[in-house]
């Protein structure tokens, strides 16, 4: 009673709310009135409104309510019409014994397959047949099975040929037409009787107003929208196929595209993982080779074999060559080795000859360079500057901590200009004596050229570092 407001707030019970289960005896302090205030609206019983109030149902419901509240048990049943009588002559009709298969029955034949001839003679047929047979000798009697066969053949053919016989019973097929259909082993055996049965069949059919003798269910209404309670099992009109809207189509297209992309991403990842696996494998193998080589070396050392140390190296080289990999500086991923085909073998041979000429050239240079320190061994090669920039030549000495470069060009009227600019050398270091295209070392050439060209008097420098053009140049070409 602390919170009066909350008492009256009718919170609906939530289906997801966890509820504790008690027995009534465990919570004697349960306040029933509180539960009543919070009573949950009764759900519907699901019985038709008109029938819900029926006497016997109400009696049964209140009896069950009574049993939950007071425990009073009254077996109350809704009375139903009698179904307790049994027939005496069941065996007369149901004679076959049933042996159940040991496995579950699987069965797909339809009722039509299982009931034999669909025509079943009735009492009138039987009377006629008995009369008919009475006049005949025992050899020419017609038995019931054959009688039904004939009747059914008449019915079947008639229904096929004149399905609307009931509208005009004058169209009933003639005996000759029907007799012509008695083809096949079974039917030709009874063809002789067709003429005898025909009048009886015709009579019955006309009495039925041309309708099939065995009454049939009505499937379609003769008059539309007239509610005949006997019409049942109507065909359903087919639902119009829903036209796919454009938005649907677009989203389908998007989904399809997404799926394709996801799939290609997945296959890429698969390929990567395969590659990595192969790479790992090759690393392991390489490691093994290394280990074994170490072992070999150790054995050799232990055994005192020394002269074959070169073989060791050359075998490595040989191996590399066999694999067709030129000893180039570019590192190719290891797995690429495996892709080399025999076809690329002579290519690699050609490479080898080129390689040897390169090597001799290199040896020659090394000879030239004796006494010099080679600082060009930098693998990084800058891209070439634009042609106009390439024409600048750098003076070998610095000025104000900068190298001065110049170029000569011919302007209009054949005037010759010398452009100068302060610039750091385009290369981190340019060997002044490296031979240029003209077979001269750059250093000598420029040195000779500018030996006497001293700008020291030219103190008031015309070059302004902060001019846009220079800033631009230095920004781009430095």
């Amino acid at each position, binding site marked *: 009673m602390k919170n009066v407001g909350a008492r009256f707030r009718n919170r609906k019970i939530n289906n997801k*709310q966890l509820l504790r289960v008690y027995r009534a005896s465990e919570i004697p302090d349960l*306040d029933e009135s509180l539960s009543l205030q919070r009573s949950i609206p009764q759900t519907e019983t699901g019985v038709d409104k008109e029938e819900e109030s029926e006497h016997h149902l109400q009696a049964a419901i209140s009896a069950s309510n009574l049993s939950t509240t007071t425990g009073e048990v009254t077996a109350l049943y809704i009375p139903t019409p009698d179904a307790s009588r049994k027939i005496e002559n069941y065996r007369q009709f149901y004679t076959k014994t049933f042996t159940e298969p040991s496995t579950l029955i699987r069965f797909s034949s339809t009722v039509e397959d299982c009931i034999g001839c669909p025509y079943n003679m009735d009492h009138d047929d039987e009377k006629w047949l008995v009369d008919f047979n009475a006049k005949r000798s025992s050899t020419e009697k017609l038995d019931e099975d054959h009688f039904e066969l004939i009747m059914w053949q008449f019915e079947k053919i008639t229904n096929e040929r004149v399905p609307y016989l009931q509208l005009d019973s004058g169209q009933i097929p003639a005996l000759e037409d029907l007799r012509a259909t008695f083809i096949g082993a079974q039917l030709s055996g009874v063809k002789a009787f067709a003429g005898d049965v025909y009048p009886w069949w015709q009579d019955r059919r006309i009495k039925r107003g041309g309708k099939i003798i065995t009454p049939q269910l009505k499937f379609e209404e003769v008059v539309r929208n007239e509610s005949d309670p006997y019409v049942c099992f109507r065909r359903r009109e087919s639902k119009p196929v829903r036209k796919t809207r454009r938005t649907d189509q677009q989203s389908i297209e998007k989904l399809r595209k997404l799926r394709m992309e996801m799939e290609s991403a997945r296959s890429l990842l698969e390929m990567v993982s395969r590659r990595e696996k192969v790479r790992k494998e090759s690393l392991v193998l390489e490691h093994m080779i290394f280990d074994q080589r170490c072992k070999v070396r150790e054995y050799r050392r232990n055994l005192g074999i020394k002269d074959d140390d070169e073989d060791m190296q050359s075998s490595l080289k040989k191996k590399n060559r066999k694999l067709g990999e030129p000893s180039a500086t570019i590192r190719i991923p290891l797995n690429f080795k495996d892709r080399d085909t025999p076809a690329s073998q002579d290519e690699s041979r050609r490479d080898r000859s080129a390689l040897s000429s390169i090597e001799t050239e290199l040896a020659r240079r090394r000879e030239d360079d004796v006494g010099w320190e080679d600082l060009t061994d930098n693998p990084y090669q800058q891209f070439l500057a634009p042609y106009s920039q390439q024409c600048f030549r750098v003076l070998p000495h610095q000025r104000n901590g900068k190298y001065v470069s110049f170029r000569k060009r011919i302007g209009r009227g054949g005037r010759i200009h010398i452009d100068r600019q302060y610039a750091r050398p385009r290369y981190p270091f340019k060997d002044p004596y490296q031979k240029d295209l003209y077979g001269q070392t750059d250093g000598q050439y420029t040195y000779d050229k500018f030996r006497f060209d001293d700008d020291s008097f030219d103190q008031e420098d015309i070059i302004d570092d902060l001019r846009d053009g220079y800033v631009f140049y230095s920004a781009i070409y430095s």
Partner: protein
Amino acid sequence: MSAVSSPFPSTIVTGGTIGSIVVGCKLQVLHGNPPEYRKAEVLSIRPSPNAEDAARCDYYVHYSDYNKRLDEWVTPERLNLHGEIEYPKLKKTKTVLGIGKETGKASEPGTPSSSSRGNKNRKSNLSKAVTAGKGADGSTGPGTPGTPGSNKRKAAAMEESGGSQGKGAGQESASLGTLMDGDEDEDDNASSVANGDSATPAGTILDESGGVFSKEQEIEKLRTSGSMTQNPHEIARVKNLDLIQIGKHEVETWYFSPYPSEYAHLPILYICEFCLTYFPGLKQLARHRTKCTLQHPPGNEIYRKDDISFFEIDGRKQKVYCRNLCLLSKLFLDHKTLYYDVDPFLFYVMTIRDDDGAHLIGYFSKEKESSEQYNVACILTLPQYQRMGFGRLLIQFSYELSKVEKRLGSPEKPLSDLGLLSYRAFWTESIVALLVEKHKSGTELSIDDIASITAFQPSDVLHTLQNLNALKYYHGQYVIVLSDTVIKNAERVAKKKKREVDPKALVWRPIQFTATQLRFL
């Protein structure tokens, strides 16, 4: 009998002659054992069979507040002609109905009244208009006395709301309006309760404006799904068969079923218990039985335990059998409709085996694709097998299928009275057993938890808990309280020896249907 028409329409008179009884009359009829008088309505009259007196008739009566399955043909001796006889109201035409509505509207502003009283007012005006209309063309009507005066008017209104059931089939469309008006008062009350619960399935039985489902609406709904008719006027009121013989049993029928009209009012219809084909005479049955080779339902057995088996049958593949089954079950199911064909349903047929074959006990049908989460469309235990626990077995099996499908299910509505009681008993038994177990282990659980364990819909769980009076408010929250009587009852039920569905014996996978297979043509 149409020549004899009532001299006092819409009125109650005391005493009358047998000749004055017409279709629609309500009077006391002897019924039951020991016999006692009960108010009943005459639904049909036919000449007595085997009677010397050609004028002697039998009367088909519906006892008020009894289920229609107890409707029966009675001899004139059982009618109490000395008591009150209530004569039917006169028929009215649609144009008159229109006038009635207008006058009703016109009168409303003048009468300061609640909406329900307004309705009554409208109704009485309507009936006045009707009688006036009839009086105007009195040449066709049989001597209609105008009913002036408020007293008479009130009586007419009462009678109208009491039951407009006295109309013959031909007048149904006209009487529909009356029925709606008459029911409106009750419906208002019902909806004021129902509105609090927003979960009320809208439009299943009643829609606010129109009242009862229109026929077109219903047929459209049936075309796409469902097997039950919601419209009481779709149900033929006079049953056409009295007795069937199926297998060993002779069973009295309960309701109308559209067996060929040539077979209507036969003393007995003979039904082959295996293929369910029907015959008007014993000779035909005997002939058929020499040829019929079926000894079990024509489908795949999906469950076998002891002598009980379940067969799954596709309505599309076994048309004849399923139609026969539906015709048979319609004899015992009031709201079942056979309006459309059986293609969209699967039939689960329960049989009991002996040396003669697997005998049909009952079945339930199930939509291949239910738009409303129904796991059962129609369910029936044949009357000769009722009250033996087979209905419970069928229900249990239907939920086992739902568990395999990993879905929650509920039976299609409306339920019959017997259906409601069977389902309630099963729900109660299952839920109480579960709660006792959970109480022992001390675990808390929600309504959704109960639903997912049992495959019942949460609304059915809630319904059951309410019936058990188990939802209580305690220490600021809802709890489930099992009273001692509930537990005692559960123990008593559990002690009864009965058959159970063994989920391990079920060999079944849900059939998947493609969209084209579900287009039904």
